[in-house]
């Protein structure tokens, strides 16, 4: 290859590298007036990993704690689509949502500053059901049976374990306080009063009926004191209790609490187990604020859903319809006044507008087919990332300075050629990383700094060879030729074996380590190009300038 072609090659590589590294406009999360916002910024197109720019990494798996999932891989595939839709709507620049292995979803959200909210959006099942509340007083009828079940259970438990007996005494204490509030509440509401009477007639206060009392003016609504909610949940978790519940009905907690007098209650609704319709037909949902109902989400159904909804609601006029999201009743069930078609709304209770926005988002994106749990989470603040970049850059600059001093001090003129090669090495490596859109991580940056120290190894090998050849009395031109030729096998073998190790690292590493391997690979390639090709060209250029007049070489 002639000198001209060599120079053209080098210039071409430089041009390509500069182009690859030229700042371009990207959308990014940036701090403006102390707040993080999305904005377009001009930036060098080097992708920074989560550890450098801050953000959140989540690994999710199917949660089987409640019910086993038969085909996990398929469930994960479906969940993946939903999570991806949600993340797209959530609005993160360059998110990663991918399947890892057969049963895990990896989500990476760069620049997120509210991790809790992000996690909720990803994890919320968002399973929406519309269920008619019971109006046959089925729970009241079942109360004797439920109390009897608990009584049996209590005796059985009391004889076997002391720990369970403690729960019973706790329930006993709850009984006392419940009765006292009942009397104080008489003044509040005559309905509660009559409800208590109704409950009372069913044969004295058993363990179950102690905890529940009639709600306010709605069939199928019951109140449980907030302090008794855990006890109630314990009861409901017993298989005997669920067997004794009215058939075809299920109990659902309200998402909000109610304050009556000085006590806080949570409503419990008995609803038809079969929903009249589910959220799968929702095509659109948007948050809104109404002066009377507060924050709410308005949704629209598709034609099929609207038709079903209309038929079902027309059959249930005068009934109350509970809007159940992830097994929680949202707001108070409204009465169905006439058949409802395409549109509906969910009131958010006391929750803020952001909660309404997030709910609208997950409704639009669809419900998760299976519950997911977070098995792995990494959150990194944006300031930590900035700090890491700053420190790594300092270390890099100092490493370069030290290497330059050593090379210039030892090899003089040839050292200067090596330093020029090193400058190109840095340029090429960064360009390669940008070009392959590799993700730059902190270990990757450290690897890069280290590679600056190791990259000159090839130069050193060549220079030492040239020195040997000069010692043997060869002319400068021959010594350079021979030096490059003899050093070649060592350079190739050592670099290739390192590259193989880096490839293994890339294959088996995760996250930061992968970034490290990519940096290493880019570095090896750039180091070989600069030491073998670029520095050689520099020598040729130098030799050519004075037409064989060079009799001594500063090396």
């Amino acid at each position: 290859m002639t000198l001209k072609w060599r120079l053209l090659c080098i210039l071409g590589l430089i041009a390509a590298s500069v182009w690859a590294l030229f700042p371009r406009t990207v959308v990014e999360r940036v701090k403006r007036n102390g707040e993080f916002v999305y904005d377009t910024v001009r930036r060098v197109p080097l992708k920074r990993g989560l550890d450098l720019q801050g953000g959140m990494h989540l690994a999710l798996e199917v949660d089987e704690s409640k019910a086993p999932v038969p085909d996990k891989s398929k469930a994960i595939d479906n969940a993946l689509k939903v999570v991806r839709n949600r993340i797209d709507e959530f609005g993160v620049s360059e998110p990663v949502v991918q399947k890892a292995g057969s049963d895990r979803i990896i989500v990476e959200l760069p620049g997120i500053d509210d991790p809790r909210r992000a996690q909720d959006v990803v994890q919320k099942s968002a399973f929406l059901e519309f269920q008619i509340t019971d109006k046959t007083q089925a729970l009241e009828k079942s109360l004797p049976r439920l109390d009897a079940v608990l009584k049996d259970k209590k005796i059985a438990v009391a004889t076997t374990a002391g720990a369970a007996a403690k729960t019973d005494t706790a329930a006993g204490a709850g009984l006392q306080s419940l009765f006292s509030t009942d009397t104080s509440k008489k003044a509040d509401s005559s309905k509660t009063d009559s409800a208590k009477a109704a409950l009372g007639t069913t044969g004295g206060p058993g363990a179950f009926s102690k905890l529940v009392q009639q709600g306010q003016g709605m069939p199928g609504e019951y109140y449980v004191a907030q302090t008794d909610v855990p006890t109630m949940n314990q009861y409901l978790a017993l298989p005997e209790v669920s067997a004794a519940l009215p058939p075809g009905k299920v109990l659902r907690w309200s998402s909000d609490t109610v304050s009556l007098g000085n006590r806080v209650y949570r409503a419990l609704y008995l609803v038809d187990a079969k929903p009249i319709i589910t959220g799968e037909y929702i095509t659109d949902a948007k948050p809104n604020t109404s002066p009377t109902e507060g924050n709410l989400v308005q949704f629209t159904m598709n034609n099929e859903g609207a038709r079903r909804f209309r038929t079902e609601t027309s059959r249930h006029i005068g009934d109350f319809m509970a809007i159940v999201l992830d097994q929680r009743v949202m707001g108070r069930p409204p009465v169905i006044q006439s058949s409802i078609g395409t549109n509906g709304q969910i009131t958010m209770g006391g929750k803020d507008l952001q909660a309404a926005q997030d709910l609208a988002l997950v409704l639009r994106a669809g419900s998760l087919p299976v519950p997911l749990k977070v098995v792995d989470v990494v959150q990194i603040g944006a300031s930590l990332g900035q700090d890491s970049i700053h420190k790594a850059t300092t270390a890099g600059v100092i490493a370069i300075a030290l290497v330059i001093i050593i090379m210039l001090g030892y090899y003089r003129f040839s050292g200067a050629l090596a330093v020029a090669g090193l400058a190109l090495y840095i340029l090429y490596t960064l360009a390669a990383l940008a070009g392959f859109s590799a993700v730059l991580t902190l270990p990757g940056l450290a690897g890069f700094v280290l590679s600056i120290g190791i990259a000159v190894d090839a130069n050193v090998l060549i220079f030492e060879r040239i020195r040997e050849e000069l010692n043997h009395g060869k002319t400068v031109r021959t010594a350079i030729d021979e030096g490059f030729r003899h050093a070649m096998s060592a350079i190739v073998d050592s670099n290739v074996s390192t590259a193989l190790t880096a490839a293994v690292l890339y294959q088996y590493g995760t996250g930061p380590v992968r970034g490290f391997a990519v940096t290493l690979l880019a570095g090896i390639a750039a180091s070989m190009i600069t030491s073998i090709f670029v520095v050689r060209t520099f020598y040729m250029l130098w030799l050519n300038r004075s037409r064989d007049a060079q009799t001594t070489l500063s090396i």
Partner: protein
Amino acid sequence: MLRILHDTNYDFIRWWKVMAAITLAFILLGLGSLAVKPPNYSIEFTGGTLMQLQFVKPPDVGDIRATLDQAGVQGAEIQQFGTNRDFTVRAQNPATVAAQAGGATTISDRIGQVLTQKFGENSFRVVRTEGVGPRVGSELRRGAITAILLSFLITLIYLSIRFEWRFATAAVIATSHDVFTTIAFLKLMHLEISLTVVAGLLTVLGYSLNDTIIIFDRVRENLRKGRKETLYETLNRSINETLPRSILTHATAFAATLALLIFAGEVIRPFAWVMAFGIVTGTFSSIYVAAPVLLWIERKWPRKTGARQSSSTATPTSRTRRSPATATR
């Protein structure tokens, strides 16, 4: 021209027994200490929760510990991380890992909550949170071991092709030696084994292998010259000839490592320590492990082709076959 250790003629290999004793003692010390107490694995490997907190005012470490103990986050390790306002809280005992089964943020949420109660709102900032489930951790451990073993295998194959199996085996044994010394070093320095440290270990392996290959390349070349000398002498000659290169390269690599060690911050420091030690052990093993092992293999399984070091009857054809790189150029 400035020269360091030029045209030397040291008998390096003569000292191999002493060196073997030293390195064996070091490895045994490290492994013995491992047997007494297992190494510190980072939460990436064990599962658990790590939080990095930055306080507005320097807090009392005892206060943090007491608050966490009361909240039921037992055995959490609290460490200063850089300045006296930065701390890491590390909860990785089996109980806390099990508590994370319901969700990876269980423990970090609780830690954040109780510390806010104790020190007040906005008294600290959570800079980093990592919550890793036990399954993820065990997969990583397996991945790291697979990576090391696989890289050995690939190296063995590559060097067998480029040199021959004797060289390849000696190089891989020298590199394995570095795995053990580095593990001993990690243990004796009480460094935590994290993913970054594993990456550092693999870099050390690459670096050490590099160094061995440079010397072996010279051995290969000197063997081809067919001098009348034993392999012992050839090895010594090759080490001496590559000595200036070794000094220079180790100096620049060490300079970069030093810069990382001092300036790159807490997160990178363990990596830099591993690398600093790696330069030492890599250099050592190239001379005092790879060369003696090669000698031993030669004695045990001598070459048949007549290319044996003492006979010096290597034919030109056999040389070119053994070294395609030089032949094609």
